[in-house]
């Protein structure tokens, strides 16, 4: 049997490294954009134009049009490859009249905009505030649900508190790493935190809690079966017994997500990528963070004695 638990020092180092890298990414983003997480118009209000030009356009030309129409400081960015002529512009909230004036001015001054392949999205700040409120509510509800779920699953286990803390720490590492990844993509690719990002994050948290619980459940089941064995060994056995399921399940979900990433539409890529990274990191944290924390805690409190003595309660 592979001694999985013994590698825990490495796991902790990797996890800490990932967390540090994520925090660095957040710091860099804060330094460059003044925002650790770049928040999209879903939450703040504003407008987002994705413009398909029929001929090459220039960043300055596009910016000029927006400024002429009274939208100071638009963020203009080219999407895709150079010859796709696909551009994205972010600006403040615009009325439909303003949007229509902008489109016409772009036609005249920059190049014809192919309306059939373009999108205009504009959100009033009050609408954005509503999304922010609901998002806060959703995060709160998720936190309560996670705590209740963990409490319910471990309610009959001795030292339930340790299991709970270990799961929550693992989940938090996972959240920080996913945030870090998204921030990095924000710096590199201009990804912004939108409603779908939050969706991906909440979904991953849901899966992550399940994964930890499956392993912990097995540990609980194995303690009375293997009385007298050191805790570390029992845990290792439990991990080995459940790892097939975890990996097989994650792999299947990943196959599908990678297929969407490679072949699916562009607009959904950040969403799927977040979910994919969240899932990889979740598999890692549930096995390599939650479990080792439990082992270390259990051994510190007992000085390495067999765990069975108090496990029969």
């Amino acid at each position, binding site marked *: 049997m592979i001694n999985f638990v013994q590698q825990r020092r490495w796991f902790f180092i990797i996890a800490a490294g990932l967390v540090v890298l994520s925090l660095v990414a957040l710091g860099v983003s804060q330094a460059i954009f003044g925002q650790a997480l770049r928040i999209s118009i879903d939450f703040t209000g504003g407008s987002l134009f994705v413009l398909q030009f029929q001929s090459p356009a220039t960043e300055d030309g596009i910016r000029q049009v927006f400024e002429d129409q009274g939208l100071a400081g638009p963020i203009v960015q080219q999407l895709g490859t150079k010859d796709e002529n696909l551009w994205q512009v972010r600006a403040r909230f615009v009325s439909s009249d303003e949007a229509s004036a902008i489109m016409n001015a772009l036609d005249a001054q920059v190049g014809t905009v192919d309306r059939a392949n373009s999108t205009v999205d504009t959100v009033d700040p009050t609408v954005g505030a509503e999304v922010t409120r609901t998002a806060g509510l959703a995060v709160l509800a998720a936190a309560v649900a996670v705590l209740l779920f963990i409490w319910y699953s471990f309610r009959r286990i001795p030292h339930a508190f340790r299991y709970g803390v270990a799961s929550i720490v693992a989940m938090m590492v996972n959240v920080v790493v996913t945030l870090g990844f998204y921030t990095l993509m924000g710096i590199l690719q201009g990804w912004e935190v939108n409603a779908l990002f939050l969706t991906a994050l*909440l979904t991953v948290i849901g899966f992550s809690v399940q994964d930890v619980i499956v392993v912990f459940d097995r540990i609980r089941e194995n303690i009375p079966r293997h009385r007298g064995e050191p805790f570390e060994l029992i845990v290792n056995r439990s991990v080995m017994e459940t790892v097939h399921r975890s990996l097989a399940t994650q792999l299947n979900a990943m196959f599908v997500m990678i297929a969407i990433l490679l072949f699916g*539409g562009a607009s959904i890529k950040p969403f799927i990528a977040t979910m994919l990274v969240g899932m990889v990191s979740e598999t890692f944290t549930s096995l390599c963070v939650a479990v080792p924390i439990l082992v270390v805690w259990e051994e510190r409190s007992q000085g390495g004695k067999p765990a069975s003595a108090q496990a029969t309660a």
Partner: protein
Amino acid sequence: MSNRTTTAFVLILLLTLVALYLVLPIQHPEWITNLLFWQPEASRSLEFQRGLDLQGGLQVLLAPDLPAGQALPDGALQASQQIVENRVNALGLTEPLVQTRGSRNIIVELPGIADPEQAMDTIRGTALLEFIESSTNLLPGTPVTTTYGLSTEEATAAMALTTTQVYSTVMTGAELKDAYPSSDSQTGEWGVTFELQSTASAMFAQYTTDHLNRPLCIVLDKVVISCPTIRSAIPDGKGSISGNFTYEEANKLAIQLRYGALPVPLKIESYKAVGPTLGQTSVERSIRAGVIGLVIVFLFMIIYYRLNGVAAALALALYVLLNLLLYKLVPITMTLPGIAGFLLSAGMAVDANILVFERMKEELRRGRSLGNAAEAGFSRAWTSVRDSNLATLLTCVILFVFGNAFAASLVKGFAITLALGTVINLFTAIVVTRTFVRVAFGLIGDKALEHPWLLGI
């Protein structure tokens, strides 16, 4: 093989055939569509409903544009919704949607619209209510040309042209003071009672006396909404319109009369215009991605779990079919995140199978017989399967609540397909796979144990 297994197997086959028939993009007989009684009668169909991001179009969030501190009058939002809906219907789109949201918003969705800028002007414009003179009772919905806004000479000139009939405008909504539904004290029938501004009473009294027993059509934005006949002269500016109205119809007409123009000015708080071609490309890409992803999952299950894997792959195929069927039946509007939720749920659907098969392998390694191991696998894995599905459903509930915010509405599509998939998965992964495994083991028997590779041990 027990009788129960055989029955279950036959039922599953039947279900598969029915689902396959309904999902296939072929012409289905009308009586089948008519069976979908829970769908609104006008739009019953066995087609996939595509969201705005998949077919392009315009989504607009409207709110009353009132000075700060001024309250919204009762019923004004409903009346505005009604008027906007009439205008949108006049655009002649296939499936427009106009609904109120909360106490201060109206959502308008115009799928597949080519010119969003013009549509927004139409939505926000001021409506014009007219009463026109006609020699016949025009049907509601008839578009008409009227003399409103024309000078007398122009009107005469316009009416002289014989190609299109031009109706003369008797008065406009501005002359109307109030209108409300009322029931006749004798017959109990619903009608609409209206009152005119005092300035218009004399003119209307004269007109009704002169045009007794002739129709007087009510026209909103140049479309006839009702065409009552003048039964008696109306001397005091108070009259009523009767006709076999239900209360709802009378109330709707009263609202249209009262608020010929929008009762409150509307402003656009948020809108999204998606080019139609963009949506089409997204659909094609998503389908391609989905097929590739699922094929890999099929292969993985078969290679990793062999005989069991074949059972799981077949169950997964049925899973996909059942999901698609429900999207059509309910119907569920497909969006890009919705498709992603479905594909993800399909990838996760095999989780339940994996839990069972891993248990089964453990039992076999402990030396149990094939049949026992299979049953033990299913029954012992059940708690884990249930828990993990419950957790996913809980996530979906939270996401659904979040998706209720307007700008986050895409999230809803993801939550719905993921939740639906999770529920269907309980059926396919447990009931269906179990039946398939029993059938397979029943046919092969314990001989399978002589070929361990068949079981992937």
